[in-house]
């Protein structure tokens, strides 16, 4: 059992965090001349076999590559860069069943409540529904609509500001949390929920 102070924090953990942040923030000072000299000194002191390898790597040379091989290497590089970009963009993770759900405030309704867009990828599903504490957990209340291709299902729902719990129901029986959202703690009756926090536009 950890001892908490009046704020509920452990003082040791706070000091450790602050020290860690301080260390991370300290600028790295490198004297370029000294650094080069130290590296060259290490190279000269290295066993001759290692030194030969280093010298061989540093020696300029001409490499002959067939045009076909160069083209293949270029294409491989382009594909890997494009793949990385797609992977890190929000909502652009590699798609399969239950991945790439998106939640974003897309507009506001007449009363000013944020309208949140929910998305879920289920290429083989015949229906997907949104359930949560904003629709009485009723699987019939908020069906998602399938896009024409890609197995992407989506719906836009006005949600009051605050913290909400929700999940998706696939084919009327299978409960799935949103893989793109934090998983909620608490009694979930064996079917995990996702948490959604909607900021109040009128509040700081």
């Amino acid at each position, binding site marked *: 059992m*950890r001892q*908490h102070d*009046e*704020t*509920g*924090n*452990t003082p040791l*953990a*706070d000091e450790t*965090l*602050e020290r*860690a*942040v*301080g260390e*991370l*923030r300290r600028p790295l000072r490198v004297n370029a001349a000294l650094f080069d000299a130290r590296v060259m000194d290490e190279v000269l002191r290295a066993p001759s076999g290692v030194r030969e390898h280093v010298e061989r790597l540093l020696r300029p040379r001409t490499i002959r590559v067939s045009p076909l091989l160069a083209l293949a290497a270029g294409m491989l590089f382009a594909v890997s860069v494009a793949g990385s970009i797609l992977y890190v963009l929000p909502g652009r993770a590699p798609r399969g069943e239950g991945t790439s759900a998106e939640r974003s405030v897309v507009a506001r309704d007449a009363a000013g409540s944020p309208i949140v867009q929910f998305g879920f990828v289920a290429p083989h599903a015949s229906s997907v529904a949104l*359930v949560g*504490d904003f629709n*009485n*957990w*009723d*699987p019939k209340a908020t069906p998602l609509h399938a896009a024409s291709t890609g197995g992407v299902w989506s719906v836009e729902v006005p949600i009051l*500001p*605050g*913290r909400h*719990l929700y999940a998706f129901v696939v084919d009327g029986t299978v*409960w799935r949390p949103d893989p793109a959202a*934090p*998983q*909620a*703690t*608490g*009694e*979930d*009756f*064996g*079917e995990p*929920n996702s*948490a959604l*926090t909607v*900021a*109040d536009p009128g*509040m*700081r």
Partner: protein
Amino acid sequence: MTRRVLSLLSLALALGAPTALRAQDARLDARLDARTRDAVVAVVDSARGAGIPSEPLVQKALEGASKHADGARILTAVRMLARELGDARSALGPTSSDAEVIAGASALHAGIAPAALSKMRASRAHGSLTVALAVLADLVARGVPGDTATTVISALTVAGAQDTELLRFQQGVEREIAQGATPAAALGVRAQGAFPTSPPRRTP
């Protein structure tokens, strides 16, 4: 004149209160067996009498019903949530909004100490704490140690971070975790970004 106003107010309350109760009963009637419904309604009425938000209790019961949980489990979950909501109300103070109390209850469930909630309330007496508490709950649910998460979110709140900034901070931590950082390290990295000139200090 005053007597007439009071009479009208009494009439409005007499007509309005049962309407609200009937509306809740109708939702619970349709989804719970009579015994469970009566027990849940008793908890809901008791919560309402104590000034605790009752809608989350109704939603918890409806969630359990949709997930086909048995009556005893539903009742246990509703009672536990009522207790957490009551603790959150006590920790945050009687003037806290229902949304703050609901987010506070989720933070308590995640393991945050009630004293930490009171401290956060004191640090932001007039602004909403809903998003700060929700972010705190979600970070701890993600595996970030509760004491360090409390320190950082409290510091951000004291520094005047807006709700959208807190949500962005949470998304940043989740992204770091998704890329392989431990939850504690992810919080440290993002905390450094959030405090570019000086480390977060615990408020006295």
